[in-house]
């Protein structure tokens, strides 16, 4: 790992820009019916901040820093758990159209 090399952060910027385009492309096709569950789903996915929180909370860092990591970990885990559960709860409610009806 050589974070000081310009090469490294340029690749991150590339990843960011390309991921944004993929995100826009995918999200634009999401059914408007599902915008509320979409938001709770992306909410859970962006709780991927949990990765950073685990690193800060679990590494051998000074106590004060780890406490911040632990609080961040609680916050992200809350988002993961409640985000996925409520998304599933909402999606279960969307019943398929009855027979003979056009979608």
């Amino acid at each position, binding site marked *: 790992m050589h974070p000081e090399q310009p090469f490294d952060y340029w690749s991150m910027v590339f990843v960011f820009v390309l*991921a944004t385009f993929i995100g826009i492309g995918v999200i634009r096709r*999401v059914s408007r019916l599902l915008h509320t569950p979409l938001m709770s789903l992306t909410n859970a996915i962006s709780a991927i901040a949990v990765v950073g929180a685990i690193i800060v909370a679990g590494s051998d860092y000074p106590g004060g820093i780890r406490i911040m990591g*632990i609080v961040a970990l609680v916050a992200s885990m809350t988002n993961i758990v409640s*985000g996925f559960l409520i998304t599933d709860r909402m999606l279960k409610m969307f019943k398929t159209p009855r027979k003979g009806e056009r979608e």
Partner: protein
Amino acid sequence: MTVSLVQLVYLVATVLFVFSLHWMNDPRTARRAVFAGVAGMALAVLATWAQPFVEHHGWIILAIIAGFAIGIPLSRVPLTAVPQRTALSHAFGGLAAGLVGTAKYYLWYGEGQENLTTFRMTAIVAEIILGFLTFTGSLMAAGKLQEIRWIPQRPVTYRGQNVMNIGLLALAAVIGIALIANPTAPWAPKLFPVVIALALLFGVLLIIPIGGADMPTVISILNAYAGLSAVAMGFVLDNKLLITAGALDGSSGLILSIIMCRAMNRSFTNVLFGAFGQVQQAARLGEGKVYKAETIEGAAQVLEQANLVVIVPGYGMAVAQAQHKVRELYDQLKKRGVTVKFAIHPVAGRMPGHMNVLLAEADIPYGDLVEMSEINPDMPQCDVALVVGANDVVNPVARTDTTSPIYGMPIVDADKARTVFAIKRSKNPGFAGIDNELYFLDKTWMLFGDAKKVMGDLVKQLGDAKGMH
């Protein structure tokens, strides 16, 4: 776990996240989306945890248990409270990003100052500003939505508000730039909390002037900020999984914000800095106008004889928890061979898609939930438009009156139906403080009362009438 194995797992998690969002394009595949998301998240957590430098397992386990303890009750809130829950989880996301950024800065300041490169420092400053302003901003939004007493519901505006808000943000940015230029200066760790404090304050002040009708846009914008703060964290930690997942969330927030803004014919800046409250005084015109009230019996008769009934739900339906009664009415009318559709305005309710979820909860098949743009061409053939707790989204003033604050906003053309019934709790104007022209048309009849009660009475009336056949 070796570095490349961890990266491989992260890559798989990224792919799962993209598929997860992809499957949201159809209600039939949508539940798969949750499984993919959970799988991706579980992989990411385990791979991170299994790295050798993560050694304090006890605290991690405790924190995870705490996350479940808070998260499970939060996922069981009534669906009318979903906007608040969503705002609250944006707040948690912002807090997590802000804290990790702060922790990393002080860590590197204390040991390994060579890590504080300009690029990283820029990312840290972006992460804490975005993270902490999302934190307080979302808490405020959640408080407003939950109608907590000491948070004003109506937009609060004062002279020089925008100048002050932008000034605060600019000040935070200037200090941030000073930190980026001198991350290891002896004064830097003392100035760092000032940036945090300014971001926290800015978040509060940003939401104070925003009213309930703008909440769908604001929640979407906060969603984008929460995603971007995760991206910034990815830049700080050299982690491409964070960057991709954050970018997916950020672009989702961006697209939803654009859809919401278009549905209100407003721009981002107008929503954030052009509080609706400022036009409130000018808008109260129609003092002399009178409402025509209709009885439950009369309304039931008209509904019964209709071919096509379009129900236009709004936030009032959510407040009154009337969705289940609406469903009973839907059943009664369907039994009589009446076609019933729901016209869904994109900003009806307090968050994107709010009405769809409430009606789906009440077991209404989603095929009958029709988007505004698709139902409007059919409105002239509609016999009865039944407005349940919607107001501004059916106000024809948006088409005609250039001085109205909602001018240009696309609306559900309820006024083109042959008859309009509007359920309204009181005779006061709606959230934007504007009289609704629809209510004073010749063909409009008002049903005053709580939406749930009026709906219940209609259902009862139809049920009784059926018994007499």
